[in-house]
C-alpha cells in the first residue's frame, strides 16, 4: 500500500467516523449560540442512536429511522429547554441529568424493543441495510480528495449543512437574532426579540442534530445497537464547540482533527504499533490531543482578542423583569 493510498484510506475513515460528531457539534453550536448550554448531548445522541436503530430494524426504512431519531433528539432537548428556560433550572446540572437519563433509558429500551426471537434484545442484531457509501463518478477516483466523494448520504448532507449554517448564522436576520440572544439577552429583549422563544427553537434544533448524529452511528458507521455505543462522542462534541469558537464554519476542522486522530490510532493499532506504544496510550491519544489542542486554542484566542469567543450569556437564564 503506497502512502497516498494510506492517506486516502485514513481520510475515508475520518469522514465516516467524524459524521456523527459533526452533526452533534453543529447542533450544539446553535444551542450554545442562543445562550443555552446543553450537556445532555451524550444522552440525547444515544437516544437518537437507539430509536433510529429500533425503527429501522422493524420497518426496514432508513429514512424513517433517521426521522424518528431526529424527533427523539428534539424531544429530549425540549425537556432540557423546558427545565432550563421556563423553569430556570441550572443548565449544567440539568444537562448532566439529561445525559444520565438518556443513557439509562436508551440502554433499558435497547433490551425491550428488540424482536421476540432475540428476547426483545436489540444488542447483537444486524440491519438488513445501512446507509451505504455513494460514489460520485470520476471524482471519487482522485487520490486523497476522492475520499470526500465516497461517503454516505448523511455525510454528503453535511457538505450542504455546514456552509448553510454559517450563512444562516452570519447573513440572515434569524442568525442575527440568534447571536444577539446569546450575547446580550436584555438588549435583544429591549429590541423586541422574544428571547426565550428563540432559545427554545435553537435548543430543540440542537436536539434534532444530536438525534441525527446518533443515527449516523447506529445506521451507518457501526450499524448495530450496543449499550452506550456513543462512547463519549457527545462530550467530545461539547469540547469541539469551544474548538470551533462557536462558528459553524470551523466545526468541520475540529471534527476532522479529532476524527483523524481517532482513525489514525486504529490504523496504528492495526499496523502493529501496539508493540511500540501500549494500546492504552493509543486509545487515549485522541482525547489527549483534543485537550492539548483546546488549551493551545484557548491561549491563542486570549492572546489575540483579549476575550474568549463564547457567547456572553451562555449558561444564564433570562427573564424580562430581572436584570
Amino acid at each position: 500500500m503506497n502512502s497516498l493510498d494510506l492517506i486516502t484510506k485514513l481520510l475515508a475513515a475520518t469522514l465516516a467516523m467524524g459524521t456523527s460528531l459533526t452533526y452533534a457539534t453543529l447542533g450544539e453550536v446553535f444551542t450554545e449560540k442562543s445562550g443555552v448550554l446543553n450537556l445532555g448531548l451524550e444522552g440525547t445522541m444515544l437516544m437518537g442512536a437507539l430509536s433510529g436503530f429500533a425503527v429501522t430494524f422493524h420497518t426496514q426504512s432508513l429514512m424513517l429511522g433517521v426521522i424518528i431519531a431526529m424527533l427523539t433528539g428534539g424531544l429530549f432537548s425540549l425537556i432540557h429547554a423546558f427545565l432550563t428556560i421556563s423553569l430556570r433550572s441550572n443548565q449544567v446540572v440539568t444537562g448532566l441529568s439529561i445525559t444520565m437519563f438518556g443513557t439509562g433509558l436508551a440502554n433499558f429500551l435497547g433490551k425491550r424493543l428488540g424482536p421476540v426471537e432475540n428476547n426483545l434484545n436489540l444488542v447483537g442484531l444486524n440491519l438488513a441495510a445501512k446507509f451505504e457509501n455513494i460514489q460520485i463518478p470520476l471524482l471519487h477516483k482522485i487520490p486523497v480528495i476522492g475520499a470526500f466523494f465516497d461517503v454516505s448520504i448523511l455525510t454528503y448532507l453535511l457538505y450542504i449543512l455546514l456552509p448553510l449554517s454559517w450563512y444562516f448564522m452570519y447573513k440572515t436576520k434569524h442568525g442575527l437574532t440568534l447571536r444577539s440572544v446569546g450575547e446580550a439577552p436584555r438588549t435583544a429583549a429591549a429590541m423586541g426579540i422574544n428571547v426565550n422563544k428563540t432559545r427554545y427553537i435553537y435548543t430543540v434544533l440542537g436536539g434534532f442534530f444530536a438525534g441525527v448524529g446518533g443515527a449516523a452511528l447506529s445506521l451507518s458507521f457501526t450499524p448495530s445497537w450496543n449499550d452506550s455505543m456513543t462512547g463519549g462522542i457527545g462530550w467530545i462534541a461539547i469540547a469541539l464547540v469551544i474548538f470551533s469558537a462557536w462558528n459553524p464554519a470551523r466545526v468541520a476542522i475540529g471534527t476532522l482533527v479529532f476524527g483523524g486522530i481517532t482513525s489514525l490510532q486504529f490504523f496504528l493499532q492495526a499496523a502493529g504499533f501496539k508493540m511500540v506504544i501500549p494500546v492504552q496510550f493509543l486509545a487515549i491519544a485522541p482525547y489527549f490531543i483534543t485537550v492539548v489542542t483546546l488549551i493551545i486554542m484557548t491561549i491563542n484566542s486570549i492572546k489575540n482578542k483579549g476575550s474568549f469567543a463564547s457567547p456572553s450569556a451562555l449558561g444564564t437564564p433570562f427573564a424580562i423583569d430581572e436584570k
Partner: protein
Amino acid sequence: MEKTLVVEMKNITKRFPGVVANEDVTLQLHKGEVLALLGENGAGKSTLMNMLVGLYRPDEGEIYVNGKHVIINSPQDSMALGIGMIHQEFMLVGNLTVAENIILGLKDLPTVPPISEINEKIIELSKKYDLKVDPTRLVETLTVGEQQRVEILKLLYRGADILILDEPTAVLTPKESQELNKILKKMLSEGKSAIFITHKMIEVLEFSETLMVLRKGKCVGIKPTASIKELSEIANLMVGRPVLFELEKGPFKPGKVRVELKNVSVNSKTHTRKTLDSISFTIRSGEILGIAGVAGNGQQPLSEVITGLMRVNSGSIIIDGEDYTNKTPLQIIKAGVSHIPADRGRMGIVGDMSVGENLSMKKYRTQELSNHHMINKSKVRQFASNLIQKFVIKTPTQFTSAKFLSGGNIQKTILAREINSCKGILIAVYPSRGLDVGAIESVRQNIIAQRDRGSAVLLVSEELDELRTVCDRIAVMFEGRIMDIMDAQDASTEKIGLLMAGVERSEECDS
C-alpha cells in the same frame, strides 16, 4: 389652545420585592412637548419608563397612547406604537456591527438583510443628523460617545415618534452632550415628543416645557419649566428638603509624597501614538490632584496603571517610597490604594451578590469582618447597614441583589465601599456620573473629608466646576500627555479649555 395628548399613564403602581417603585403615578405627554422627568436616584424614573416600553408591566393603572387604551406586553408592542427608548445602560450587542445593532429585531426585515443598502441608509441618516459613525465597525470598539450615537441612530432608523431618553448624557463628555443636545433639538423640531430623564439642571431648563418630579415612587409635582426661577427650587422638590450647594473644605496642608509617577508610558496596541506618554506627577497626603481632559485622552489608562489593572511599558510608579510598577491589583490594594473605576458595570459590582456582600468585598478578609477564615456575619451586617445609612443607599434590604438597585444607587454602593476602605490613597474616576444633586454633593464632601483626614486623592473628572471646587491642583491631559499642572485657584475655564484641546502653553501666555 388645547394640545393633544400622545401618552397618558394613569395611576400607575409598580411593586418589586421590598419596594414600591411607582405609586399611583399619573403622567401626561403632549404632542411636540418635552417632559423632563426628575427625581433622586431610586425615585422610580427608569421603572416608570420601562413600563411604557414593555420591559416591565404595571401592577395597577392604565396606559393610553394617542388616546387609545393600550396594553404593552413587550418592546415589540411599544415599537409598533412608535415609542423608542434610550436606556440608562446601553442596549447594544458588543460583538455585532453598528448596522447589525441598528436593524436588530426589526419586524419587516427581509430574511437576508441587504447589508450594503442598510449601511447606506445609516450613513444618510447620520449625515442628516450629524451623527458620525461607521456602520461596519463592531460596537465594542466604539467609545462611549459613539455608542450613544448608535443608540440615537436606532431610534431614528425605526422612526420612533415618542422618544424616551433615560439619562442620555450621563456618560458623555460636556462636548458630546452638547452635540447630542443639538441632535435632540433637531428631532424635536420635527414634531416628535419626548420624555427626558436627567440629573443635569441645565438640560432641564434648556429642553423641557414641563417638568415632573418623582420622590420615593410618588409624583410630587408637575410644573411648567418656565415657572422655575431658581435651580434650588427643583432640587428642593426632588429631595424634599433644601439642598446645600456648599462644600466644607479644610485648609490645604499637603504632607509627604504618597504616590509618584516617573515618566510612565504605555504603548497603544492600535495607535502609533502612546496611550500614556511620559507621565510624571506626585500626589501628597492631604491633597486632591484633579485630572481634566476630554474623555479618551488617557485618563482611564492612567487610573488603571496606578491600580495595577494595566501594565506600563516604561517608567515607574512609586507608592510610599516603594516601587509598585506592574504589581498586581491585590498588592496595590494592600498598599492602601482604593479605586472607583470608570466602568462600574463591569468592574465595580457583582450584580448577583447582595448589597451587603458588595459593600464588604474589600474588607471581608480583614480582622474587622472575619476571624480565622470565617466571616463574621453579624459584623458584616452591622458594617453594611452603617455604610448604607452613611451614603444614603436606597435599597429594600442589604440582602437584595445589587443588580436590582437603581443606576445611581449602584454607583453609591461602589463609592461607599471604596471610600470606606480607603487607607490613604484614593483613585476616583468620574465619581459623580449618574448621581442626583444631593448624592453628588455628598460624594464630593466625602472625597474632601478623605483629603482632610490626610489621604492622597486622584480625581478624574470632566466637569470643570467639580475639579475647581474639589481639587487642590489640576493636571490637564491631552492625547496621553500631561499638558500642564496648575493650582486649582489659577485654573480658569479658558486656560483649561485650551489645554484640553491640545494647545501648548506658550511662553507669552505664561508670563
